[in-house]
């Protein structure tokens, strides 16, 4: 396993309107201009506006995926309700706790043994016309971590330029004041200079990456119903589709949005929507219609805490069961899961390609922590996966929409094609599409819909498989990042392990999994769900001669690498 790259973790907290997210975003973008990689996760209270907020960054000379197990710096613009973030921002004796002079940090933070530093944030801001404490904070953090001031300045000018010269000047003055005031601590934390600062880096969120993957895959119609934490996918897609000749329609509910996709796809346009658990639950009947009528659609589920309304703003991997088992009848479909912010792009694009090629429904399971995390990443490669639907373009006599035989994929005639008129149907049907309740038609069509998926060669993208050893960790989605980090830490202690994280959850790939786990004698299953949904899925579809052990932890707290290390060390030996 690779070593863990040195990284710096910085959290900024403050009450609503204090500019926490702005400061965090600017810091992340400035890091990108330096050539550092990074991530920024956000956390906020339940209020729509005005609640407390936290921006949590991790910067490194190498790509980073998961939040750190500890934070180097916590800066409170103010401390109102900041104790709510205590579990998300662990500090220790090596941490630095920075607050406004005269404000007392919550005991939950000071109790960690972190060194405290009072700086006159608000006083400095007041001394500048139009000055704001978040810009002073940005300057302080910049100085502490050795961020070149030119990088901060260029980012400020780019992002605040539209607010006018005086806004830029006030912000620059704030940053300078913060940097000067923190000069005594300058370089207290530092990161190496990037080896190659000329690489093309992107600043993108998982939700945006999923949207871009959809469009690269050929999606040109999106029907949308807003839902936290998926809305950013749709909000990025609305203007972006317009630029490339597509369209997004805001529907009246998720029942309408998924059915609009089916209509558009029936007309030949690759179609997609994004939702979260409650919306997916509403859509399931019609996802089954897409399967039965062999009309390709893609549904992204940005998972949040469940069941019911659950915890809309926090992450959990607990929609696996509904994605795998949620359709009534025997309804073979695709379920895929990206394993990182950047992978949201690839996996969504691949899902579009697969749904279109196999004429079925694909569910893409991302989650809040991937979707709403911003990351500085290398420019994502252009992969060749585009729609690839088999279309019947020629007029033929006796056209059969659901013809059986071959690989099970029957060319689809689109409206407008003379002589190929047919009715696509959610009722069981004969090869021509005529409704049928005959046993042989049912069996034939069930086989067709199963075999076209089972017979496809999904290639090496089916999973992330890394490392060696008799010990394996099997995980999925956003849990891969902390697992990778845990395995790197174990590697330094001389404990070898491999990790398997399937991107393709349906259809299952028993032979590929067998190869990936060849020689394994013990395996730990790591996931963020209370009911150990992934563990049970593995037991059902991938029975092993050795014991699978479960580490299942519900949201909203992220899985920490250190917890995975401990759990692996405490595994039962068989």
């Amino acid at each position, binding site marked *: 396993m690779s070593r863990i790259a040195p990284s710096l973790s910085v959290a900024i907290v403050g009450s609503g309107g204090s500019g926490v997210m702005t400061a965090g975003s600017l810091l992340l973008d400035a890091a990108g*201009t330096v050539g550092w990689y990074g991530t920024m996760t956000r956390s906020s209270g339940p209020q729509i506006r005005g609640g407390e907020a936290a921006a949590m960054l991790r910067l490194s000379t190498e790509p980073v995926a998961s939040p750190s197990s500890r934070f180097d710096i916590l800066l409170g613009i103010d401390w109102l309700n900041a104790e709510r973030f205590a579990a998300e921002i662990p500090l220790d004796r090596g941490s630095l706790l920075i607050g406004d002079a005269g404000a007392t940090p919550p005991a939950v933070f000071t109790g960690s043994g972190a060194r405290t530093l009072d700086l006159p944030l608000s006083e400095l801001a007041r001394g500048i016309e139009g000055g704001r404490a978040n810009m002073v904070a940005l300057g302080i953090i910049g100085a502490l971590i050795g961020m070149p001031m030119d990088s901060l300045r260029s980012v400020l000018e780019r992002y605040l330029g539209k607010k006018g010269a005086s806004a830029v000047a006030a912000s620059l003055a704030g940053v300078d004041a913060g940097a000067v005031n923190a000069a005594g601590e300058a370089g207290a934390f530092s990161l190496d200079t990037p080896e190659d600062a000329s690489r093309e*880096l*992107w*600043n*993108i969120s998982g939700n*945006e990456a999923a949207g*871009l993957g959809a*469009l*690269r895959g050929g999606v*040109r*119609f999106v*029907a949308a119903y807003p839902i936290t934490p998926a809305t950013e996918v749709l909000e*990025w897609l609305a203007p*972006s589709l*317009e*630029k*490339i*000749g*597509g*369209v997004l*329609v805001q*529907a*009246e*509910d998720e*029942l*309408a*949005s998924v*059915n*609009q*996709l*089916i*209509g*558009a*796809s*029936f*007309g*030949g*346009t690759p*179609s997609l929507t994004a939702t979260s658990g409650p919306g997916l639950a509403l859509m399931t*009947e*019609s996802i*089954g*219609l897409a399967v039965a*009528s062999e009309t390709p659609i893609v549904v992204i589920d940005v998972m949040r805490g469940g069941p019911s309304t659950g915890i809309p703003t926090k992450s959990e991997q607990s929609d696996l069961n509904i994605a795998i088992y949620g359709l009534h009848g025997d309804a073979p479909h695709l379920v895929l899961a990206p394993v990182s912010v950047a992978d949201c792009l690839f996996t969504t694009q691949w899902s579009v390609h697969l749904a279109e090629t196999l004429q079925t429904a694909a569910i893409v399971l991302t989650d809040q922590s991937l979707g709403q995390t911003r990351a*500085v990443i290398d420019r994502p490669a*252009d992969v060749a996966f585009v729609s690839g639907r088999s279309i019947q373009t020629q007029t033929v006599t006796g056209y059969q929409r659901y013809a059986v035989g071959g690989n099970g994929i029957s060319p689809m005639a689109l*409206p*407008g*094609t*003379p002589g*190929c*008129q*047919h*009715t*696509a*149907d*959610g*009722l069981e049907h004969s090869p021509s*599409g005529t*409704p049928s309740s005959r046993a042989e038609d049912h069996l034939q069509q069930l086989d067709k819909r199963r075999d076209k998926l089972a017979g496809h060669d999904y290639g090496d993208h089916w999973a992330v498989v890394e490392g060696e050893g008799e010990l394996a960790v099997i995980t999925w989605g956003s849990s891969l990042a902390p697992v990778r980090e845990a395995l790197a830490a174990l590697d330094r202690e001389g404990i070898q392990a491999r990790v398997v994280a399937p991107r393709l959850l349906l259809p299952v790939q028993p032979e590929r999994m067998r190869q990936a786990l060849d020689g394994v004698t013990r395996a730990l299953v790591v996931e963020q769900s209370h009911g150990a949904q992934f563990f049970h899925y593995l037991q059902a579809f991938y029975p092993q001669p050795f014991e699978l052990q479960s580490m299942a932890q519900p949201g909203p707290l992220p899985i920490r690498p250190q917890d995975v290390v401990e759990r692996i060390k405490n595994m039962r030996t068989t």
Partner: protein
Amino acid sequence: MTESASKQQAPMKAKDYKSGIKPVWCPGCGDFSVLSAMIKAMAALQLKPENVAVISGIGCSSRIPAYLNVYGFHAVHGRALPVGIGLKITRPELTVLVAGGDGDGFSIGGNHFMQACRRNVDMTYIVMDNQVYGMTKGQASPTTEPDWERGKLTPHGTRINPFYPLVVALASGANFIARASSSDPNGAARVITEAVQHPGFSFVQIMSPCVTFRPEQRDWKKIVRPAPVEATSDPAAAARRLMTDDSFFLGTLFKGERVAFQPEFGGQSAPVTELDKDFKINS
């Protein structure tokens, strides 16, 4: 909107729109006449069968796409309208009709009906209204009278107010509102023709008896009569007329002037790589 066949080709006849599949309907069902009216309307408009799509949900009348030699989509219960909307927005050159029953359209699909009227996509929605769930064998529907006691789930009558589709359509913004009767297939064909030609969302209620579970509806043919006035483009005038409507006046009630909802689709466009700019840090 509609499209004329090119002059070189032989004109389309009614039989060109029939698929030849035998309907599942009971003998005497009003839906046979509606099928015939739809075919007559398509022939009158000389639509190329391949350029017509008929979308339906679930119920007796929702079986209709398979009986037509056009493109059809038989979707799930209550969701035909969003399927039709997704198709029409992305394939505006097609003639899209959505067809179904009163349970499918006004109960499980009631919100989509309201929203489709609001959205005003250029399509025609035909509801074959028989005031009963026939396919599930005789339960009260949203348009059933409150004191109908033969509904198997409501033996004391529904005791709830019936749904007035024309009122809801008008209030929600449908651009064309009409009523026809299966007892007059030629009249129904004329109304459907007019509905397809009118821009925006056209709603046609067709009184279509269920002879099996509501045999008394056979008498509808004696009650229905043409409305004594012409269609209006004034929603207030249409609303006043609906106040005295007994659900058996036939003809076109309202022809609005709203512009159909049709976002630009597939027009001038930049390559997808153009979108990379959103994310490049050093660009």
